[in-house]
């Protein structure tokens, strides 16, 4: 880009900002609920300031150059925060691409040499496209962070421990039992055995989609740890197809008490605690 063009753009900064803001406000999908117009203006000004400050005759076609790092940094910050706040990709892309229109108008008004105008438009277009790509990459990265955080949260909340009876706790496991999950399950279980002074823990795996050798190893470890605490562990919810698969795989669960249903595990636990459930007979009063 010609030094004179850059200088002209710098002198028209206010106009570019006004045009850009107008473009953004015109968008019917603008999320005023997520960000006030004032904040939007602050973000826009910061970006334009840095961009016009960075641009010079030598670097305008070299977006990969170090010069543009501050611009990318601001842009990354903006799109990360937008991703976290729940903006859609379209809204975030519109933010940066509507800047193109604003700069195009100013170039068109101020450059009369058509071949020069043509060349400058092309360069600005390429530049903003690169900025758009960075915006998109960081936006996705922001979304991935949100997903990872939610994964952690799901791991935490999906391992509730239920006190089913004095001395008996139950832990329904839902979802895939990977190494990180197992760690959480095991810790929660051991702490709860102590807190509730329980001697029997029932681990229900009805909600676990597949039991492969890694999951089996995790289950065996959890049972061993429970026994070290002086408690017994029953594994329930082993569906018929899972039982068959475990056998073919060659996993030996014979040292573990396993039951098909939570109900039969509970019955077993009552027996172990020498408890009996009986039906109350209502004698008819005369």
């Amino acid at each position: 880009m010609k030094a004179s063009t850059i200088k002209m753009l710098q002198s028209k900064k206010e106009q570019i900002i006004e045009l850009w803001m107008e473009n953004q406000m015109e968008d019917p999908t603008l999320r005023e609920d997520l960000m006030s117009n004032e904040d939007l203006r602050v973000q826009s000004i910061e970006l334009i300031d840095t961009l016009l400050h960075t641009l010079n005759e030598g670097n305008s076609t070299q977006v990969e150059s170090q010069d543009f790092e501050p611009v990318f940094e601001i842009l990354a910050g903006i799109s990360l925060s937008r991703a976290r706040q729940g903006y859609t990709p379209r809204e975030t892309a519109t933010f940066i691409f509507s800047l193109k229109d604003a700069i195009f108008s100013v170039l068109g008004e101020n450059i009369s040499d058509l071949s020069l105008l043509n060349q400058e438009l092309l360069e600005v277009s390429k530049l903003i496209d690169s900025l758009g790509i960075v915006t998109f990459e960081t936006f996705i990265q922001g979304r991935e962070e949100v997903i990872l955080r939610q994964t952690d949260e799901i791991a935490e909340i999906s391992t509730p421990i239920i006190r089913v009876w004095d001395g008996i706790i139950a832990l329904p496991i839902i979802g895939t039992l990977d190494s990180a999950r197992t760690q959480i399950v095991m810790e929660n279980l051991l702490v709860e055995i102590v807190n509730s002074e329980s001697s029997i823990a029932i681990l229900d795996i009805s909600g676990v989609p597949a039991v492969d050798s890694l999951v089996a190893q995790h289950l065996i470890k959890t049972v061993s740890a429970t026994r070290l605490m002086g408690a017994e562990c029953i594994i329930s919810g082993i569906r018929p197809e899972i039982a068959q698969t475990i056998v073919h795989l060659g996993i030996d669960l014979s040292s573990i008490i396993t039951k098909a249903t939570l109900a039969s595990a509970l019955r077993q636990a009552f027996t172990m605690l020498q408890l009996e459930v009986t039906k109350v007979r209502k004698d008819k009063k005369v």
Partner: protein
Amino acid sequence: MITLNRDRLLIHKDQDVVILRNRVKEYATKIGMGLVNQTKLITGTSELVRNMLRYAQGGEVLIEVVSRGRENGIRLTFSDRGPGIADLDKAMQDGFSTGRSLGLGLPGTKRLMSEFSIKSAPGEGTTVTVIKWKNG
């Protein structure tokens, strides 16, 4: 044998295990595979993809719906460019593991599948191909 449908999945992180298993389950359901065979197929898939992640830092899985005569099935090809396996006979033995795990992934998966073949050499990566027939 003819291929009716094919799908490719790149594997490079733990979360891909669940994605792959679900994709395989979709295809198995589509050809009407029963619950027991589906569970065997998915468990074997889980073993092989975990090996791929653990010993070779990931790789690629090809999912194919195949047909031979009147029988339909799912063929999976797991290929990685990891270190490869020096002694295949040992690796196929129950209980052999260099990763301090149960050592049942390869031999167990062979038992769960209808067909199983493995190709591997040190420095050349590992390719495991399995087929589970709908009624196999």
